Structure formats: C-alpha cells, structure tokens
C-alpha cells in the first residue's frame, strides 16, 4: 500500500515548500540517519523492548566498530508491531532490526515486513534451537525470518509459605488444581489460587497449547482456523466452571489490583512462564524467597505437556539495506555463548539457544534463590512444549479474546466461556476471509 501518484506529488511539492521555509534552524538530532554507508561503517537501528538490550549492544559495538547498533526501546509487543507495520505501509521509517514475538511472525511476514535471512546466517544456526522454536521463525518453509532469542515455557508458580499454612499440596493435575483452589478459597475467602485473565490472550493460548490445541493450521495453500476445537473448549469450560464457582478470581492480571494481591498474598498461585521471577520481583519485591516453581498441572496424570507464553525472535526488516550485517549481529546476540551470557546476565531472559544454556543459566534467578534447581526443572518442562501454529491474524483473534472472554468472566457463567470460543472462531475466520485469504472449513 503505497501512496498514489496524485497525492504523492502533492505531498512532495507541499513538503518541499515547507522545508524550504522551515529548515532555517538545524534539524533535531533524530538519530534516524541509518545507513549512510560512509567509509564502510554501517549503522543499524534496533527496535526492542527486552531488558538489558542496550548493555548487550554496547559490548557488540565495542568489538565491532564497523557495524554500530543503536537500540530504540519500544513499548512492549503490540504498539511496536503497529509502528513497524505503519512504517512498512508508508515505505520508509522501519528499523533494521526488530524484536518479533513468535505469534506475530506470520502477521509480519504476510505484511512483507520481515526479510528472509536464510542466505546470510552462519551455517549451523538452525541446529542450535529446539525444532518447534526454529519452526516458528521459518513457518515451516525454507525462508528464515529471524533468530529465536528467548522462549517462555509455562510453569506453575505458587506461594510456598501459604501452601504450608493451609496444608495444601502442589497440584500435578488440573483436577487437583481445582480441588486445591476450592480448598484454599474455602479456608480463606479472600485468597485465590489464581485468576482467569480475559486480558491476556497469550496466557490462554499457552493453556490451550498445553491441552493440544493449535489455533491455526496450514493446509496446502489455505489456512485453517481451529479455535473452536475440543482442546480449547475443554480449557474454556474448565476455567468457566472455576470462575462460576467463585473459587478462582475473574479479574485481569497486570493491574494495580493484581499487584496488590500478589503483595498481600491473596493471589497464592500464578500460572505463568519462565520469565515470571522478573515480574514477581518488580511487582512484589517483598515476597522474595516465598515463591516456588513447579511444572504445570496436567490433563492426564503423568504427562509432561506445557504451553508457551511469550518469547521473541530478532528479525531483519524488509526495509533494511544491510541485511548481511544485521544477520551477523543477530547470530552473535542470540546464538553465541557471549551473546547468550549477556541476554541472561543483563536481561534475565531464558535463552532459546540450547548449547549456551548450561553455562549461562548456572544459578537460579535471585528472586528464586530458595530453589537451587530452578533452571534444571525449567529445562525439563521446556521439553514438553506442544506444537502450535500461529496464523496471520493473531491480533484479531486476541482482541476477540479480550472482548468475548471479558464478557464471560464478568458474568461468571461457565456457558458463556464456551460461547466466547465460538465467537472468537467466527471473528477470526470472518477476518481472514474478508482479507481474501483462502480458508478451509
């Protein structure tokens, strides 16, 4: 979608006139003068919101005077994608490097925002990652749209002290989870084992992924949408039941209220992912040492399945004129021992690069110093991440999740949770068809 000739000419003429009158003073130091290419020195801009990225980049810049990277910190997730897509539509303004959450890759690829870097990556990069993780940056084809940075296998986090106080045992199945939730809430009605958050579609996706769902699928030259499927309905019905009973809270996560509940111990458990220690430390610093991590409760006793919540790759955008240099930087950052050590020490990320994990993750996160085997356990759970395919309109499905499950959670009716799944399916399919994608029924 480019501007069309008439408007383009008008805009250009107008802007030239404007610049002629307006440029009397020096232009602001915008720092966007990427890629002057003077003297072989290459400047790359990097849009990211991962913590510690500036520190890691500083190490790179020190060692690579010819490829200088500038970090532009972004608002997490959606806003950055919005900006990137707007820049792609406008034809200019995109950075060279971009932090892409895994679920956004199909959308960005379908908008032609990401460059294929298969040819410019060092050999052997693919072998450093778990198959499922690598598949999410290739979408199953030959092109490579980024290098995985971190991943977010899900676990169950709980307040060990409160569990002891009420004599609760750590649930290993969802059936037990429901029992413990009821036991706790009956013992102290102000306490909940968790909350159903209608604001965190990524969280719900992870839960259904564990149950075996994959919301999209590629079927030859067509997409399939499988949101309204048995595993998703099972998960929705389960949570709807808990919310209707009132043993699980129905308020969203990441609100001041939720923070207060983490602090005062009324949220006793959190189904979260490997990056949870950082969030807990930021939101409830005084509860350090009181939390423990355990594998996710299972649908079948003895399974070791889990889902994924969060995690990103680093990609080169289609507007970058220095793809080779950008790929070289990414390979260092996400797939070398030095880079990965920095991701862990500066950013507290859980690296996707398997060969570097042992050295980088030798001690537990500070907030979980009471759990020495934190990363050993985490690595075991990570093996159980179930396959999942994201489609090109994840945002549509996710905002439908917010709206539909918001209504259901507010009403506290289990039947509405199933209705919400149906509505999500319809909205997602409608949108794909409306855009012209081929969708199989």
């Amino acid at each position, binding site marked *: 979608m480019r501007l069309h000739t008439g408007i383009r000419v008008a805009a250009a003429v107008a802007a030239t006139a404007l610049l002629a009158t307006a440029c009397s003073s020096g232009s602001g130091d915008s720092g966007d003068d990427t890629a002057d290419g003077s003297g072989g020195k290459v400047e790359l801009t990097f849009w990211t919101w991962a913590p510690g990225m500036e520190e890691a980049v500083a190490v790179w810049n020190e060692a690579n005077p010819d490829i200088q990277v500038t970090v532009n910190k972004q608002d997490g997730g959606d806003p950055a994608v919005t*900006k990137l897509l*707007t820049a792609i539509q*406008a034809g200019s303004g995109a950075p060279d490097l971009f932090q892409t959450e895994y679920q956004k890759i199909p959308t960005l690829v379908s908008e032609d925002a990401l460059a294929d870097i298969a040819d410019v990556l060092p050999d052997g990069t693919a072998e450093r990652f778990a198959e499922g993780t690598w598949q999410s940056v290739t979408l199953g084809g030959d092109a490579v749209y980024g290098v995985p940075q971190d991943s977010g296998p899900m676990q169950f986090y709980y307040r060990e002290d409160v569990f002891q106080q009420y004599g609760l045992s750590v649930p290993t199945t969802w059936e037990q989870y429901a029992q413990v939730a009821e036991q706790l809430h009956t013992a102290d009605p102000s306490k909940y084992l968790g909350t159903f958050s209608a604001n965190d579609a990524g969280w719900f996706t992870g839960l259904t992924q564990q149950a075996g769902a994959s919301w999209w699928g590629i079927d030859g030259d067509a997409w399939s949408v499988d949101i309204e499927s048995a595993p998703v309905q099972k998960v929705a019905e389960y949570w709807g039941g808990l919310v209707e009973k009132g043993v699980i809270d129905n308020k969203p996560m990441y609100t001041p209220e939720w923070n207060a509940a983490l602090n005062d111990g009324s949220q006793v458990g959190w189904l979260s992912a490997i990056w949870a220690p950082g969030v807990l430390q930021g939101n409830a610093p005084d509860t350090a040492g009181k939390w423990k991590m355990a594998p996710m409760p299972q649908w079948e006793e003895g399974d070791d399945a889990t889902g994924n919540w969060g995690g990103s790759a680093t990609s080169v955008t289609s507007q970058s004129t220095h793809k080779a240099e950008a790929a070289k930087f990414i390979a260092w950052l996400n797939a070398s021992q030095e880079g990965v050590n920095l991701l862990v020490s500066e950013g507290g990320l859980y690296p996707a690069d398997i060969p570097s994990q042992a050295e980088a993750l030798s001690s537990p996160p500070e907030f979980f110093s009471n759990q020495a085997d934190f990363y050993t356990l985490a690595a075991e759970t990570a093996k159980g991440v179930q396959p999942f395919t994201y489609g090109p309109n994840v945002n549509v499905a996710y905002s439908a999740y917010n709206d539909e499950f918001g209504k259901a959670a507010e009403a506290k009716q289990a039947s509405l949770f199933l209705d919400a799944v149906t509505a999500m399916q319809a909205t997602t399919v409608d949108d794909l068809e409306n855009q012209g994608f081929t969708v199989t029924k």
Partner: protein
Amino acid sequence: MTTTTTLHRATAAASVPALRPERKVRPSVFGTVVLLVGALYCLMPVAWVLVASSKSAGELFSTFTFLPSTHLLDNIGELSAYRGGLYWRWMANTALYAGVGAAVSVLVSSMAGYALAKYRFAGKTLVFNLILAGVLVPGVVLAVPQYLLLAEVGLTNTYWSVLLPSLISPYGIYLCRIYAGASVPDELLEAARTDGASEWRTFSRIAVPLMGPGLVTVFLFQFVGIWNNFMLPYIMLGNDRLYPITVGLNGLLNQGASQPAMYTSVITGALLSIVPLALLFLTLQRYWKVDLAAGSVKA
C-alpha cells in the same frame, strides 16, 4: 463596533478586582463550602499522586493508599537514573514540542485571526468555515494519514513530525479572530495607515500589543494541548529519545507480559510532569480568559 470595543476596554479595566465596589456583604457559607468541595474533588487525585510517589514499589501495593512514606527522593533518583536520565530528556522534549509549537502556533493563528477579523476579502467566509470544520476533526482520525504523508517525505521519527502538525490550531485561529475583533479598534488601524505604516507594521505594532493578553491565552491553550497530546507523537516516533512525557510514561507502563510495569516510576514521573504546568497556571493565571463568544456581549 464602537460600542463593543469601548465595552471591552471597560471590562478589561474592570477585571482588576480593586475597581469592584467594596460593600459589606454577608459571606455565604453554603457557596464557599460548595466551591471547596469542588476544589477537594479536583485536588484529591493529585494529592494521591503526591502520596503514592513517596512510596517504595512494595509499599505502593501494601500500605493504605493515603499513608505517605519517605521514598520520594529515592523514586526521583531511580526515575532519573532510568536509562541514563531519559526521563528528563522526555521532559525537555515535551517543553520543546509545547513551547516552540505553541509560540509558532500563536504567531500563525494571530495573523490568520487578524486577517479574518479586520479585512474584507473574497473567500473570507469559505476560509473561516473551513477552519471551523477543522475544529471538529478528531486527532485519532488524522494521525494515520498524517503519518503516511510525512513518511512519504521522510520526516517521521523526527522532531519535525510532532512539531509541524502541532503548528496549525483551528481553535487558536478562531479565538484569535475573536480577540482581534474585540480588542483592535478599526480607527486605530486606519490612523496607522494614514500615517503611512505598512500592513505588517500595523499588525505587529498596533494589533499584536492590543491582542496581547488574548494571545497569551491562546499560547497557554496550545501549550497545554501539545503537552497533553498522546496520539500524534505515539504514532510518529520510533526513537524513544524523541518521546514526550506522555508517550514515555505510557511505555513504562506497557512493558509487555514478561516485564513488570514500572508503577513507581510512572507515578513519580506523572507527579513531576504536573509540576511545570501547575507552575505555569499559577504564574499566568490572570491570562486564563478563554472568551469563546466575546463579540456577542452586546446586551
């Protein structure tokens, strides 16, 4: 016209409180209480920010909301240390966007408002109606096409991308037209012209000083408008070193699921961002006279 003008000059003088006839009036307890309740309602969230920004991250969610603590300086220190003092850069950016934007906007608006009030020319009604229509267009609607057009000339993600669209203020032009109409007598303009002054000189030496207080109002109005703007810079800027306060603080709040929101810093930052505007209001409060319909006081 003459009556309106003199009337206005009279009211300008009358707004000096001393000229109001002092008479013994019984103070109204009820009226005063109503006003104070209103003031309390408006101050309460501000008081809350003040208290909240004195709390540490843990206290913010664990102690009683209006119980102050002692960490204000720590919080300011932490906020200032965030990524090499980025917060203060946002503050400076905001001051730049709002200060320069409002100053140029006042110049542009005063010229246009003066022309609309004091000249007769072909297309006057059309121009005025166009500008009025501009008052009605919501910013969210404009942001995307503005971005696409600025991107076409490579100006997105620069100071210009926020400054340039802020320079045009249909509302400011509308107000300036009212001020020019009400405060600049035609006779003075005619006299200046008879003396051989150029049109520009007549405007800058006679009309501008007469419109002065009104122009300060338009400046303040536009300053606050740009200071509070969120959508335009949010869409235009990718480089966080160019952000204004609103966009910067919003970023601290929306860190994505895997990062804790920096509530303490956001709240402290919100408090500090209110201070400059509060000072501006206090020092310039006599200029806050937004007269939407001045010309119509013909009674």
